[in-house]
């Protein structure tokens, strides 16, 4: 990487961190630290919400996913705008009326302390582990690309976030997220324009879109219902609705973002604009991945996108097999590129039979190419059974490192660091506020001064930050951890959402019934996950509906407290 790239990367990250600390300097109280003195306008809230949700994996994985699987992942977000409307109508006014610091405070006023503590505990377990992964997931990829030690990368991301989050609290999180979001979207748009510009001169933008469409990458909408297919309109709208209602309505890392708003109006507008902008944003990121795919129809792609893993394989006894497979891959690419160019000529001449013939031929060539890549992955696993054989996450970053101009590489690495830091800062802030407000202040030290709780909030932010870094450094010793934590989220989200839905809408169900319903529902969700093959996105509606159903049941059979 050139000095200019290093300058852009380090300069961007240092500027954002210093700006965040400078902007939030001065004396603070607990209200200012945890709720930002309710001073944020809707655009800050909107950007903050989007930056919290957009982790580094969003920018690393999503273009790679489009490269492999097309744009159908976009359907996953169709439940989000509906969730935004429901939260704007129901959740926000109640949170404001009760003047809560955390979402879980509402549960005590509606139910009782044990229900509040249960929800807060489930959040702390799930989000505490997820914070480690938010750091680890990009660190493993960036360290591989930059040649750094993975623990060093984790430590850098974690320490920078801890410094400004501890210094400025929730306001620093919001302030930095505005800059980070600008870097993220600006960087991705620049990347998209450069990718389009790098297509061969005979391929116009419209031709590129046509090629992508004919090669099944513009598969944005699928109305066919299938329980096992995670991405169709129906699973996106229904499963996504439950997931996003739970995430935005009950996860403190998001609730804290809009509770920092100046008024109900500002918070509502922030969420609703997120509902308007999120899908177009994901569309842009996926579309960049599709353009990278089209680029690699004309320029030779590597047989395996994780360069470091491939180079390690050269040092094993399987090097000869790899060289042979690479030769086959190169020949396969030449053949594919020839047929793609034939298809392109058919598209330009509007010659449908030629296009159809090319598509048929391409299907066979692509199947061969896939088989070669599968063999390479098999070799990797033979050489090292622990090796990560999924290279989707490396598609975009390896393209950036190889083809992007100097300066832009630094900017796009800053995008990924910013995304990781923006999510982590929200998580640390939320973990600290939930620990202080729902546990420490409520159950351990209820009578201390505001200054004491402010100090405690800062200490807990550092504590959770250190825990996240420690977890990130240990993560490399565990298999499939990222997926495990994603599943962990879905295991808990449904139950937590169920408690809140009962709290908001089902007044006849009381504290005792909802608590035992939540405990039993959580056990049943875990049982469903361990004994069936059902996609984990469906665990969200299942958990929620179980809490509601069991809540009615327990309300009817349990003896009522006066």
């Amino acid at each position, binding site marked *: 990487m050139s000095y200019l790239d290093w300058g852009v990367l380090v300069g961007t990250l240092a500027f954002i961190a210093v700006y965040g600390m400078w902007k939030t300097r001065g004396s603070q109280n607990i209200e200012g630290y945890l709720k930002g003195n309710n001073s944020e306008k809707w655009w800050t809230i909107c950007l903050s919400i989007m930056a919290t949700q957009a982790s580094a994996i969003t920018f690393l994985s999503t273009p790679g996913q489009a490269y492999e699987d097309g744009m159908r992942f*976009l359907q996953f977000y169709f439940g989000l*705008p*509906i969730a935004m*409307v429901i939260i704007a109508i129901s959740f926000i006014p109640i949170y404001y009326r009760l003047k809560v610091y955390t979402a879980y405070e509402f549960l005590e006023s509606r139910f009782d302390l044990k229900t509040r503590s249960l929800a807060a505990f489930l959040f702390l377990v799930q989000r505490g582990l997820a914070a480690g992964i938010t750091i680890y997931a990009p660190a493993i990829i960036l360290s591989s690309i930059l040649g750094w030690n993975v623990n060093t990368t984790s430590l850098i991301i974690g320490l920078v976030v801890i410094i400004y989050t501890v210094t400025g609290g929730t306001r620093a999180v919001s302030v930095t997220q505005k800059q980070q979001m600008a870097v993220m979207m600006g960087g991705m748009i620049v990347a998209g324009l450069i990718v389009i510009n790098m297509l061969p001169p005979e391929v116009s933008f419209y031709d590129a879109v046509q090629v*992508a469409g004919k090669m099944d990458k513009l598969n944005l909408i699928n109305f066919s219902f299938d329980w096992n297919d995670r991405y169709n309109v129906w699973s996106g709208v229904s499963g996504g609705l439950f997931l996003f209602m739970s995430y935005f309505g009950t996860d403190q890392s998001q609730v804290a973002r809009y509770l920092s708003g*100046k008024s*109900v109006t500002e918070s*509502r507008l922030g969420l609703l604009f997120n509902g308007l902008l999120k899908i177009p944003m994901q569309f842009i990121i996926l579309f960049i991945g599709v353009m990278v795919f089209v680029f690699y129809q004309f320029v030779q792609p590597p047989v395996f996108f994780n360069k470091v893993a491939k180079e390690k394989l050269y040092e094993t006894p399987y090097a000869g097999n790899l060289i042979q497979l690479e030769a086959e891959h190169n020949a396969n690419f030449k053949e594919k590129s020839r047929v793609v160019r034939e298809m392109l000529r058919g598209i330009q001449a509007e010659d449908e039979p030629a296009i159809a013939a090319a598509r048929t031929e391409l299907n066979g060539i692509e199947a061969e190419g896939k088989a070669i890549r599968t063999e390479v992955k098999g070799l990797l696993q033979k050489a090292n059974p622990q090796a990560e054989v999924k290279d989707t996450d490396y598609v975009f970053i390896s393209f950036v490192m190889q083809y992007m101009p100097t300066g832009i590489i630094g900017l796009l690495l800053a995008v990924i660091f910013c995304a990781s830091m923006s999510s982590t800062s929200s998580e640390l802030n939320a973990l600290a506020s939930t620990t202080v407000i729902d546990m420490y202040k409520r159950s351990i030290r209820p009578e201390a001064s505001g200054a004491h709780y402010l100090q405690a909030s800062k200490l807990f932010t550092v504590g959770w930050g250190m825990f996240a870094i420690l977890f990130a450094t240990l993560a490399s010793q565990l298999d499939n951890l990222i997926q495990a934590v994603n599943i962990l989220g879905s295991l808990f989200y449904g139950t937590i959402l169920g408690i809140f839905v009962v709290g908001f809408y089902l007044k006849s169900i009381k504290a005792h019934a909802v608590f035992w319903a939540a405990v039993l529902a959580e056990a049943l969700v875990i049982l469903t996950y361990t004994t069936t093959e059902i996609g984990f996105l469906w665990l969200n509606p299942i958990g929620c509906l179980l809490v509601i159903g069991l809540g009615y049941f327990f309300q009817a059979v349990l003896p009522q407290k006066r």
Partner: protein
Amino acid sequence: MDQERSTDNQKPPFFNSWRPFYFLVIGALVLQIIVFYAITRYFE
């Protein structure tokens, strides 16, 4: 500070009530699904 915070009676910008704003968000979703469906079918 809390006294300064408004209640949920405030109107959104551009509209007289929140209801049209909610319809705008849901309408935008429906429109996007239609446009994406058209893109899927046109380019397949």
